[in-house]
């Protein structure tokens, strides 16, 4: 089984499992994986979650994903429209429970970089920008960061530029909020007193050692580390039916 399951599908289900029932969840731009993860969660263990789309629909009936995560067609049969500025008001009230964010670099403290490789004023590589990261990272009870290329250039000792705030770059009141990193090799969390990245689970077909060898800093397994649970066939079918054009694969090429 584990040799058959595809990494995007496994990541989508790992991301979905970070959502609890009754959570209010928001996704942003360029987010086919989060959209599929939120859809899977709704159809499985979190039927009562509130789904706020980056395209502004509330609890839309998502029949498929598109190359754009702001496409108005993602709002089909929504119960309401809720603008991003309204969602941010909600976040400032602490009422958005889970947010999914991307990253070009993540370090051991959970800092993310989406801004620049090299110096900000003389960038070696100009990155697209952090979008909501610097705002949502500290405020949100749980931020799930997805990484499609787990290697030493992405999982780094220290990010070139702190776009999103890890535990060493946030006020005391925000240190209680969780960060979870879901990569193509495993799932990492920071549930330890030092708030340092540790291995929560390794994906089927991968190992703790493989994760350690591909991480740019010393990372240890969390107590009770396990293999990432494998989704059932019906969930895999759900994902495939929602993504006939394999949009979810784009980030992996």
């Amino acid at each position: 089984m584990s040799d058959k399951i595809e990494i995007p599908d496994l990541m989508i289900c790992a991301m979905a499992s970070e959502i609890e029932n009754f959570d209010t969840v928001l996704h942003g731009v360029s987010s086919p994986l989060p959209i599929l993860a939120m859809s899977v969660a709704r159809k499985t263990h979190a039927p009562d979650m509130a789904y706020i789309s980056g395209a502004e629909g509330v609890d839309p009936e998502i029949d498929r994903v598109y190359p754009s995560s702001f496409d108005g067609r993602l709002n089909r049969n929504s119960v309401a429209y809720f603008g991003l500025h309204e969602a941010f008001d909600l976040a400032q009230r602490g009422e958005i429970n889970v947010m999914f964010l991307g990253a070009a670099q993540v370090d051991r403290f959970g800092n993310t970089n989406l801004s620049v490789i090299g110096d900000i004023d003389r960038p070696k590589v100009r990155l697209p920008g952090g979008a909501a990261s610097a705002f949502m990272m500290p405020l949100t009870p749980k931020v799930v960061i997805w990484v499609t290329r787990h290697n030493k250039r992405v999982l780094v000792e220290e990010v070139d530029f702190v776009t999103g705030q890890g535990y060493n770059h946030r006020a005391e009141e925000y240190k209680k909020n969780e960060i979870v990193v879901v990569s193509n090799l495993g799932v990492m969390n920071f549930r330890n007193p030092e708030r340092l990245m540790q291995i929560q689970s390794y994906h089927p077909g991968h190992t703790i050692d493989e994760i350690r060898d591909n991480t740019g800093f010393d990372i240890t397994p969390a107590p009770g580390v396990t293999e990432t649970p494998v989704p059932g066939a019906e969930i895999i079918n759900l994902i495939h039916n929602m993504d006939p054009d394999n949009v979810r694969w784009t980030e992996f090429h």
Partner: protein
Amino acid sequence: MKKVLTSLEEAANLVKDGDLVTFGGATFHRAPMEFVRELARKGKKGLTLVDREPAMDFDLLIGAGCVAKVRTAMLAFEIFGMAPNFRKKSESGEIITKEGACQPIISGFRAAAMGLPSLPIKGMLGSDLMEISEVVGSQKEVEDPFTGEKMIAVRAIEPDVAVIHAQKADEYGNVQIQGPLYEDVIKAKAAKKVVVTVEELIPNSEVRRMPQATSIPHFIVDAVVELPRGAYPCSCFNYYDVDYDHIKEYLKAAAEGQFDKYLDKYVYGRENA
């Protein structure tokens, strides 16, 4: 109400070289692309562009040499990756890019819409983006006057011109936007001048039949231009979807150093791509 219906040509003249400009929509949706192409045709110079998450609209003007500065939270082509001209010219230093984040940019627009010099927000602290903002003077760490809580004051962003592509409007500038609004209503209220290009011109009597459908009232709109397919190749909800083949052609041209040919074909050549 006064009639503000005009031509694309006249409306584009409202944008002056060096202006601070924002566009409606987000990424590939309801960007006022035909107006953007007109700005390129007119050879506007030194524009400062500001928006939360733009895409092809900003990148095309950067590629056409109309832009001096860009302020965005993210400028990319969604899952297709980096905006090619933005990346090239920001790395070469041809344009100044002071990156923001979604909430500070949205709240900057909101402050201006509310007639306030600044607005407090949360988050941001601890990010290296704060340092940039303090230098640029767009954000400042402050204490709430009642609770002492650490907040970030975001300076108002009042664009000289906001350009919005919508589905419908009447000749007075009562605008109906369908589907996602993004920050279009806020931008319209925030800007000194507002230009709206629309798929369809409708009679005032139709507007009055459902006032709750009016997103932007006439008294803050300075120009309305009837411009079917004015968002192409971006989408206009209920009218047309994104033309991803065109967007891939754009990216291919840029990647192969053929962007000038793209501009000749789709901007300087035929009136409408």
